[in-house]
């Protein structure tokens, strides 16, 4: 069977990697990548080669995406165009529009399409929030006590709502919803990776959250499997094991600076205005209570385990940034 795959968010790292892996698959006849900005590899900035991926510059918030889907007879849609932090120019409002309105437009186009058979949506474990009143380990079915009310996590919750609505209206389409833990790896640039490259790591006094990471290689592999096989449902994706924030700081050889939580928020605001690192309210909650998810459903469904544990993913990230003054785990 020939496949034509549409990948959104192809100008960012993971999106580009997924597009290039799919482009290398001989069973897939065409890969069409869309994003609001051209991918770095097309603008002489280097970056991941997209192979034979065809790039179309589309703003997901506009109905143009429907024309792309109709014109190319797309049968698989991989939606990765979720922005996790407001851009310096657009701010939070543009980010929300991009995430939520963009998903609505895309799903609306899929619903009208007669060719789309499979939809894979990237979400995040941030939809579970972080709270002292929730279980230590989240499974996919769990309803959190204190769901997220801000920012990226709130967007992801809304996106998931639209995805579920779409799955109900089009039961003939295989819908896979993937909740990824924080990405970690040599090419990842996220608020969290920027946090760990600071010279001093501010932490919330009296709290030491449990964190979980997924290595970019594993994330790409999961997305490839989901895009080429039928695995309907919602899945948590994370590396095995957990790291405490204090443990991450020690492995990175970075001193941590415990601040009382009000000071943390104030300082976070100052640093954000300086455009350095993002400390959103959700991130402060994550820095207090942490978040761990159960990944057994994904492992049973794919018959596969992530190659990198949380610790190995973090170590690989540290190696790529040459952050290891104290030695850490013997290589």
């Amino acid at each position: 069977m020939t496949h034509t795959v549409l990948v959104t968010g192809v100008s960012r790292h993971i999106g580009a990697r997924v597009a290039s892996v799919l482009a290398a698959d001989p069973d897939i006849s065409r890969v069409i990548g869309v994003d609001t900005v051209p991918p770095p590899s097309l603008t002489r900035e280097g970056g991941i080669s997209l192979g034979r991926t065809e790039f179309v510059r589309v703003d997901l918030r506009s109905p143009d995406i429907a024309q792309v889907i109709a014109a190319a007879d797309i049968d698989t849609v991989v939606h990765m165009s979720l922005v996790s932090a407001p851009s310096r120019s657009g701010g939070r409002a543009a980010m929300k529009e991009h995430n939520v309105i963009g998903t609505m437009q895309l799903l609306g186009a899929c619903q009208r399409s007669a060719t789309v058979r499979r939809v894979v949506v990237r979400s995040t474990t941030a939809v579970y929030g972080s709270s002292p009143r929730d279980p230590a380990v989240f499974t996919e079915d769990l309803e959190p006590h204190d769901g997220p009310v801000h920012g990226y996590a709130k967007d992801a919750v809304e996106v998931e709502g639209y995805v579920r609505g779409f799955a109900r209206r089009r039961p003939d389409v295989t819908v896979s919803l993937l909740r990824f833990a924080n990405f970690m790896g040599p090419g990842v640039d996220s608020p969290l990776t920027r946090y760990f490259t600071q010279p001093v790591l501010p932490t919330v006094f009296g709290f030491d959250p449990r964190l979980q990471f997924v290595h970019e290689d594993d994330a790409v592999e999961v997305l490839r499997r989901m895009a080429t096989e039928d695995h309907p449902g919602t899945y948590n994706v994370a590396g095995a094991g957990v790291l405490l924030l204090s443990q991450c700081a020690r492995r990175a050889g970075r001193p941590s600076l415990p601040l009382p939580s009000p000071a943390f928020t104030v300082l976070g605001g100052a640093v954000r205005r300086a455009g350095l690192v993002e400390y959103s309210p959700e991130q402060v909650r994550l820095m207090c209570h942490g978040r761990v998810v159960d990944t057994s459903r994904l492992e049973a469904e794919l018959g596969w385990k992530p190659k990198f544990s949380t610790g190995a993913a973090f170590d690989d990230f540290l190696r790529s940034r040459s952050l290891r003054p104290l030695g850490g785990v013997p290589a």
Partner: protein
Amino acid sequence: MSVPHEDEARVIPISAAPSFEETDSGHEPDPMAALLAFLRRRVTGDYEVDEFGYDAELTDKVVLELIRPLYHHWFRVETLELKNIPDDSGALVVANHSGTLPLDALMLQVALHDEVGRPLRLLGADLVYQLPMLSHLARKTGHTLACREDADRLLRKGELVGVFPEGFKGVGKPFSERYKLQRFGRGGFVASAIRAGVPIVPTAIVGAEEIYPKIGDLKFLARILGLPYLPITPFFPLLGPLGLVPLPSKWMIEFGEPIRTDEYEPAAADDPMLVFNITDHVREVIQQLLNELRLRRGHAFPPFL
């Protein structure tokens, strides 16, 4: 740094509890090297915690080490019927709760860790996880939130889980009500035991009632601070921080005959009548154990009082 010593250290047989007491003199590693290796692991972050955040090494080598003098010399804790704790399978330890500050939880943890070689995973109130310091210390020493999902998960993994079903009602009750079990809530712990098919071990802790005799409650101040109670004892707040020193009562902990739950189907956990009946039964057994053990102990502050 100290590779040969580490190799040597590896030959030590994995005995019951991790090696805080290396009696096997032939294989004893150089304590200095062991200490350095320990510090190196801690400083570089090269240690493991489980998904609940339990840091076994930190708990054994640091936290429990600080509590052990209290256990052995201050409260002189004596344990009875340890054989009722399974060696390696899951079980639910259900105990009475008392003492104004939950020192009984710490003593129960030392007893099971050092004398049976099993880490105790307690299910605590959500207040614990909202407070700075306490929240991560509780997780690092192996405890988690009292909720159905966490209890089921730990029991499925074959862990030894502990609960104090009386909760704040028990630990914060006035001295005049000592050794009277309070209400046992909804019996969620019984439902969890049935779902996992693990035995319930009724446990009586005698001695904790006398450490901070609560004779009054600063209810108004407690409400302002968001605490369930703020106790007045004969020495607190009268003597200030000195009033926080627990009185050296004699402690005894007895583990009762396990109550089996594996004869029920997991679906029986949704039968409220069955759950209430077992809850009542567990409560009666613990009350009876408490009464007997209290007689057996005699004076709280031997040999005088």
